[in-house]
């Protein structure tokens, strides 16, 4: 048997599984998004926009601002791990920041549901140290809770990637800049971040797609309007069996991640072109 055929046979079961259980339902969801009551057209999209316009915008803002915060925190963590002055502080930070890495979203949702509530530990601590009075406390279980949960859960993942990329950089340029008297924030922003931006972007795009897929966090933190379209999709299915609108919202979520990935690809292609 020729080696190429043998290799294909070895890959075939895994490839078939992806085709049947991912690619087929994906295509199915795209096609049925355009079908409403036996007719083909944009009826589902019109209905989606009528019912959930604010939620669509809201979803993009939540996921976008979470990604932005994750990026900033990851660069800060990676930057301190690379440039930090105190080995002890670096060791503590390294041990500390990774805890949420593999904690499932549903568990993170439950943790934050208790922590961010009006009577949660965050508000209780703030009143205890005198920063808030009990009357001033508010529950953060709305869009802010979703953003906080996403950032809490997803930052370690991106920070791990970014810190790894920063650690493998050539130190000589950093040392040279330091000898010339550049401050550490400046070295981070002008020398280190430009060299790891590819890794940073990949981490953020993966996080963007993951956050667009999570159902448990919006359901547990804030399922009232305005909420994320993931919660709306589940509601259309459970309450009405309305696959048309659910799939239209699904296609909108593909388009959002597609737009983000496209920006990345364009950027990566340009980057490739610049290389000698």
């Amino acid at each position, binding site marked *: 048997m020729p*080696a*190429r055929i*043998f*290799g*294909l046979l*070895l*890959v075939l*079961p*895994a490839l078939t*599984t*992806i085709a049947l*259980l*991912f*690619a*087929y*339902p*994906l295509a*199915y*969801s795209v096609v*049925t998004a355009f079908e409403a009551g036996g007719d083909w057209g944009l009826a589902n999209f019109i209905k989606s926009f009528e019912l959930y316009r604010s939620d669509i915008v809201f979803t993009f803002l939540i996921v976008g601002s979470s990604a932005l915060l994750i990026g900033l925190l990851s660069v800060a963590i990676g930057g301190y791990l690379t440039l930090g002055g*105190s080995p002890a502080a670096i060791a503590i*930070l390294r041990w*500390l920041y*990774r*805890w*949420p890495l*593999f*904690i*499932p*979203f*549903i*568990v993170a*949702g*439950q*943790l934050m549901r*208790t*922590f961010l509530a*009006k*009577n949660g*530990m*965050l508000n209780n601590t703030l*009143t*205890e140290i005198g920063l808030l009075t*009990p009357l001033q406390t508010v529950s953060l279980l709305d869009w802010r809770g979703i953003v906080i949960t996403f950032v*809490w859960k997803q930052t370690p993942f991106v920070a791990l990637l970014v810190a*790894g990329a920063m650690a493998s950089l050539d130190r000589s340029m950093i040392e040279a800049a330091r000898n010339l008297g550049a401050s550490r924030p400046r070295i981070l922003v002008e020398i280190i971040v430009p060299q790891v931006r590819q890794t940073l972007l990949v981490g953020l795009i993966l996080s963007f*797609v993951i956050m*667009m*897929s999570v159902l*448990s966090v919006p*359901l*547990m933190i804030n399922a009232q309007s305005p909420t994320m379209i993931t919660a709306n*999709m589940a509601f259309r299915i459970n309450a009405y069996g309305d696959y048309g609108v*659910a*799939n239209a*919202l*699904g296609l909108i*979520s*593909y388009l959002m*991640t597609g737009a983000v990935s496209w920006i990345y690809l364009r950027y990566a292609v340009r980057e490739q072109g610049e290389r000698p």
Partner: protein
Amino acid sequence: MTAAAGTLPRGFEPLDRVRALAGSRTLAWLIRGVLLGLLAFAIFGPLLNMLLWTVTERWYFPHKLPLEYGFSFWQRVFAPRGGAIESLVNSIVIALGTVVLSLAMALPAGYALARLKLPFRSLILLAFLLPQAFPNLPVYINIARIFYQFGLNGTYIGVVLVHTTHGLVYAVWIATAAFAAVDRELEEAARSIGAGALRTFLTITLPLAAPGIFASAIFVFLESLDEFTGTYFVGAPDVQTLPLLLYSASAGGNYQIASITALILLVPSIAFMFVVERFIRADVLARVGR
């Protein structure tokens, strides 16, 4: 903070310099301490809040701490009618099934992608990236619809298939990276002293790639154990897993049961976080997705 000391005006006596240096050191540690303390609170605060709920008997507004501590909810959760044992067993059975099925497909695929000449290799690798590029919730909704026609909804096999599709991607990537990291010369040496292809694979390649593959098995196990969305659409209400139990307890306002379930799911995740580096070396991680 040498930079601060370097900016001192001229004419400072050496002793003043030392004092200023010591002062800026203390200040630096103060800032570090406050920032690390805030980070520690942000990370451990939610965990601590959950731990308190697991041993709470009574706790309501405006009390800052539980009024009564105890383990009565643990008894209730683990009682035959509490559902936790059943969910735990279901979750473990499904996760083990997912690991076996994923590895059965990922090992040959990973080996072929790492070692054999394949037509359309980059296209095939791209196909395994596909599930990472799209939000999977709409896909799960439609898998549930398709499974319904085949009677797979609400069955263990249906849930295992959904979890396998998700886990397979990671399993293939990590297996490919692990096989690619094995030194080719060792395989060639075995072949040159007369070992067959299968024997070389079983005695040289597989043992050397084993740590990475073991890590991918644990990862796939954890992903399946923690999976919520797919199980919610395909399995519920017939197949009850721990995440579904956690969700229904939390939605019902029973924070004790939700927190105890969360703790059960939390322990293996954090344990894995601490051991993962022993299994996956940096050079294997660097090859993932290439």
